[in-house]
C-alpha cells in the first residue's frame, strides 16, 4: 500500500517568508495528488490538485510541484501570513474513488 511521509515536526516561519512543505510517497506514482488545509477542531478543506503530467500548479499565493522521479510534492505559500497557520495534508489516490492522507505538517507563521 502507498506510504505517505510528511514532516511531522511543526514548521515555524516568519511572516512574509515563503513556507515550503514536503510530501513524499514510497510506492507507485499516483496520477494526481491533492493538498488540504485543516484548522484545529475542523474538517480538512481542499486546496489544490496536481496531475502527474503537471510539473507545477498555482493558485493565488499557493504553488504545488510534483516530481514523480523523486516521488515528492512540494507545497509553497509565498508571502506567508499568520492566517496561513494551520496543518496541511497531502492525499494520494489509492483504490476506486478513495485517497490516503498523510499525517500533515503544522505550519506556524510568526508575526
Amino acid at each position: 500500500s502507498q506510504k505517505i511521509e510528511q514532516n511531522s515536526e511543526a514548521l515555524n516561519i516568519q511572516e512574509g517568508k515563503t513556507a515550503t512543505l514536503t510530501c513524499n510517497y514510497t510506492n507507485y506514482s499516483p496520477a494526481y495528488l491533492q493538498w488540504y488545509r485543516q484548522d484545529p477542531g475542523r474538517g480538512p478543506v481542499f486546496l489544490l490538485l496536481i496531475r502527474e503530467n503537471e510539473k507545477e500548479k498555482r493558485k493565488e499565493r499557493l504553488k504545488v510541484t510534483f516530481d514523480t522521479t523523486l516521488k515528492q510534492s512540494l507545497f509553497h505559500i509565498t508571502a506567508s501570513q499568520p492566517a496561513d497557520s494551520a496543518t496541511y495534508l497531502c492525499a494520494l489516490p489509492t483504490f476506486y474513488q478513495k485517497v490516503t492522507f498523510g499525517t500533515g505538517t503544522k505550519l506556524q507563521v510568526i508575526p
Partner: protein
Amino acid sequence: DVKVTQSSRYLVKRTGEKVFLECVQDMDHENMFWYRQDPGLGLRLIYFSYDVKMKEKGDIPEGYSVSREKKERFSLILESASTNQTSMYLCASSLRTSGVGEQYFGPGTRLTVT
C-alpha cells in the same frame, strides 16, 4: 455553498453504549466517507459508500458499521462503544469522477467514550 453537516460536534458516551453518528450532504454526491483522526495517526478511513445501500470497508472497520439508505445521508454506528473509539470522527463526500474528486468534509464529531 457546499455543505456537509454532522449531527453533533461533541459527544460523550459510556462504554458499551450504541452510538449513532449522522452525516448529511447537500451536494448530490455519490461518494461518502467516514474517517477517524487521532494525533500522530492522521486520517484513517473506516467505511466508504459509493452509492445508496452500497458500502465498502476501509482500513479500520472493526467495531463499526454504516448505513446509507438515502443518497444524502451516511450514518456511522458504534455497536458497543469502547474507550479506544474515543476520537475525532470526520465525514466527507465527493463526486464520482473518472479519477478521484476533491473531498468535502464536515466539521467533525469529537467522541469521548468513558
